[in-house]
C-alpha cells in the first residue's frame, strides 16, 4: 500500500468536516434501510454503509462546479455534493419529493445543479460519460474536474478500459476512484481477476501511476483526493485510485451477505471508518461531547428527512408522460 501523502497537515476544520460528512452518510443510509423495513422503499437499495470515508475524503476537495458520477451504491457521493437528504430518501421510496420525482428510483440519485451528475446502474456505463463531461470542461475552459466512482467488479467491463484509455490519451481532468469492497455482488473479486488489485494493477496499462489507499481512513483518502484532484485541475491528466474498503451489509437489500466469512466481516467492522476516525479525533483532543453532538445532529437531519418522505405523496400520475423530450412531453408523432 502506498503511504498516505503526509506532505501537508490536515486542518481541524477539515477533520471536523470529514467526520461530519461520514456521520451524515451513515445516518442517511441507516434511514434508507429503516424506510425499506417499513415497506416504503419498493424495488431495491444498495447501501454504502462502511464505505463512507471514500465519499467524505473526495467530496471535501471539490469545487461546486466539479462533477461527480457514481453507481447505484452512490447515495453518499450524491449527498456530499450538497444534496438534501429528503430528495435522496424520497427517490429511494419513489415519492413525489424524490430528486427525480420518483421516476429514477433508488439507483439513480441525481441533482445536476449540484454537480451530483447521477448514479448509474448498468455496471461501467458512467465511466465514459464522466470522461466526456471532463472533455467538455476542457473545451469550454472551465477548469472542472470529473470524479468517477465505481466498484472493483467494474474493472472487468469494457467501458472501464475504453474510458481510462481515452482519458489518459486526451489527458483529461478525471479522477477514477475504484472502491474495492472485495466483492462484485456475491463473487469475491479475487476469483475473477488475474492480478491482486483490480484497478491499481491495471493502471500501468494506461500509463498511470499505481495508487492504492486505505479507503477506511478518511484522512488518507482526503490526502489522495487532494493530490489527484489538483493534478487533474492543473491539466496533468487523469488518475486511477484504488480505495480498499468493505460494505457492512449485503450487496443489495435482498442479500444477507452469507457468502462472506464471519471473521472477515468482524475484522472489517472493527475497522469501521467512523470508529477509526472517532478514535483519531479523540486522541487528537477533540472533546467527545462535541463529537456526540455532531452525531445527534446527523441523526436528527436524517429522521426529519424520513418524516418528509413518510408524508410525501406518490408521484402525480401526470408525471408518467412527461420529460421524454426537451419540450417536456412524450409525443412521437407530429
Amino acid at each position, binding site marked *: 500500500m502506498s503511504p498516505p501523502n503526509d506532505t501537508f497537515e490536515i486542518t481541524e476544520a477539515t477533520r471536523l468536516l470529514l467526520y461530519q460528512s461520514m456521520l451524515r452518510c451513515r445516518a442517511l443510509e441507516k434511514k434508507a434501510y429503516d424506510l425499506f423495513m417499513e415497506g416504503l422503499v419498493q424495488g431495491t437499495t444498495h447501501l454504502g454503509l462502511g464505505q463512507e470515508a471514500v465519499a467524505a475524503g473526495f467530496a471535501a476537495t471539490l469545487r461546486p462546479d466539479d462533477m461527480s458520477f457514481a453507481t447505484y451504491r452512490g447515495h453518499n457521493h450524491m449527498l456530499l455534493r450538497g444534496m438534501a437528504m429528503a430528495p435522496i430518501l424520497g427517490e429511494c421510496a419513489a415519492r413525489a419529493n424524490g430528486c427525480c420525482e420518483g421516476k429514477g428510483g433508488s439507483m439513480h440519485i441525481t441533482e445536476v445543479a449540484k454537480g451530483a451528475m447521477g448514479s448509474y446502474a448498468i455496471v461501467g456505463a458512467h465511466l465514459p460519460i464522466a470522461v466526456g*463531461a471532463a472533455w467538455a470542461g476542457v473545451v469550454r475552459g472551465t477548469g472542472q474536474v470529473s470524479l468517477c466512482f465505481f466498484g472493483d467488479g467494474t474493472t472487468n467491463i469494457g467501458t472501464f478500459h475504453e474510458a481510462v484509455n481515452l482519458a489518459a*490519451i486526451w489527458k483529461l481532468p478525471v479522477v477514477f476512484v475504484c472502491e474495492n469492497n472485495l466483492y462484485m455482488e456475491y463473487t469475491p473479486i479475487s476469483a475473477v481477476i488475474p492480478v491482486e488489485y483490480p484497478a491499481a494493477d491495471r493502471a500501468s496499462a494506461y500509463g498511470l501511476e499505481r495508487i492504492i489507499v486505505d479507503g477506511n481512513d478518511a484522512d488518507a483518502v482526503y490526502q489522495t483526493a487532494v493530490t489527484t484532484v489538483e493534478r487533474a485541475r492543473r491539466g496533468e491528466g487523469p488518475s486511477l485510485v484504488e480505495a480498499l474498503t468493505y460494505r457492512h451489509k449485503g450487496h443489495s437489500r435482498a442479500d444477507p451477505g452469507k457468502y462472506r466469512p464471519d471473521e472477515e466481516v468482524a475484522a472489517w467492522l472493527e475497522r469501521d471508518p467512523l470508529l477509526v476516525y472517532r478514535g483519531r479525533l479523540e486522541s487528537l483532543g477533540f472533546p467527545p461531547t462535541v463529537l456526540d453532538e455532531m452525531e445527534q445532529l446527523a441523526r436528527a437531519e436524517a429522521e426529519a428527512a424520513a418524516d418528509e418522505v413518510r408524508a410525501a405523496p406518490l408521484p402525480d400520475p401526470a408525471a408518467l408522460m412527461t420529460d421524454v423530450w426537451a419540450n417536456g412531453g*412524450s409525443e412521437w408523432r407530429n
Partner: protein
Amino acid sequence: MAELTYRNAIARGIGQEMERDERVVFIGEDIGAAGGVFKTTVGLFERFGPDRVRDTPISEQAIIGGIMGAAMNGLRPIGELMFSDFVGVAWDGIANQIAKTRYMTAGQVALPLVIRTANGGGTHFGGQHSQSVENWHMMIPGLKVVAPATPRDVVGLMAAAVRDDDPVIFLDHKKLYALKEDVPDGEIVDVLGKAVIRHPGSDVTIVALAAMVHVALEAAGRLAEHGVSAEVIDLRTLVPLDTATFLESVSRTGRLFTVEENPRLCGWGAEIASIAAEECLWDLDGPIVRITTPHIPLPAAANLEDLAIPSAERVVQTVLSQA
C-alpha cells in the same frame, strides 16, 4: 446553387453547424485528418482544428458515453460510428443511457447530441457492415431518428438534428454517397418530423425512407407506363413521425405500400401499417402491403444482396399484382 454529392453534403451540414455554434464538436474514428473512411468528413479537421474535430481510439462505448457526458456539460456534440452496425457495440450507451436519462431524472439532464453513422446495404459489405438499423432505434423511447434521402436533406436535416435539444440518430445511407443534385447556397435548416411527397400520384401511396425513396421513385416512373399513378412519400424522420402526410395521401389513393430496407419483422413499415389500419381503414380499398428485405441477415454476394433488398422491379410487380 451548385451540384453537391450526398457524401459532401455530410461535411457541409456538419460544417454549417460548427461554424454557427462553437459548442458543436465532432468525434469519431478516422474522421479528422483522414476525412472519414467514406470521405464524408473531408475538410472539417482543417477548418475547425483538433479541439473540435477529434479522432478517437476504436472505442465505440467511449465515443457514445463521451458525447453523452459532453452534452451534459454544455456542448452539442456529434459522435460518429463508422458503420451503423456498430451501434451494437455501444447499445447500452444509446438505448439505456442516452435515451432514458432525461426521463429518469425528471428532466434534469438535457442531451443535445447527434449520433451520425453510415447505414444500409447495397454495397456488398456482408451482414455486419450493411444493415439498416433505423427500426432498432425507432423502438426506443427517447431517441429521434433521421434518415435523409437527398444531398439537400442531408444538410437541412443535419442542421435540424444538431439544433434539436434531444438525442438524434442520424443515419446517412452508404449507397447514396455518390448521388448528386443541385443544392442552394447558404444555410439550409429543416425541421424534424416533416415528410415530403417526392412524386405526386392518385392511385397508390408508397411510403419510403432513405435509399428506398429512390427505389420507390424509379418504381413510380415504371408504374406510370402501366397506367398506375403512384404517390411517393419520403418520411425523412421516423421519430418524430409525420403521420399526417401519409394518412392524407392514403385518404386520396385508397392504397398503401411501404418500401423498407430493414428486415421484415418489426420494420418501421409495420408501425405505418398499424397506424393506417387504426386511423384510416375505411379509406383503404385493399390490403396494406409491405415490401421489405426478407427476415434474413444480408449476404455479401452482389446477386444475393440484390435479391434481398427491395428493388424497383419488386415494387412494380408487387403494386401491379395488387391492382
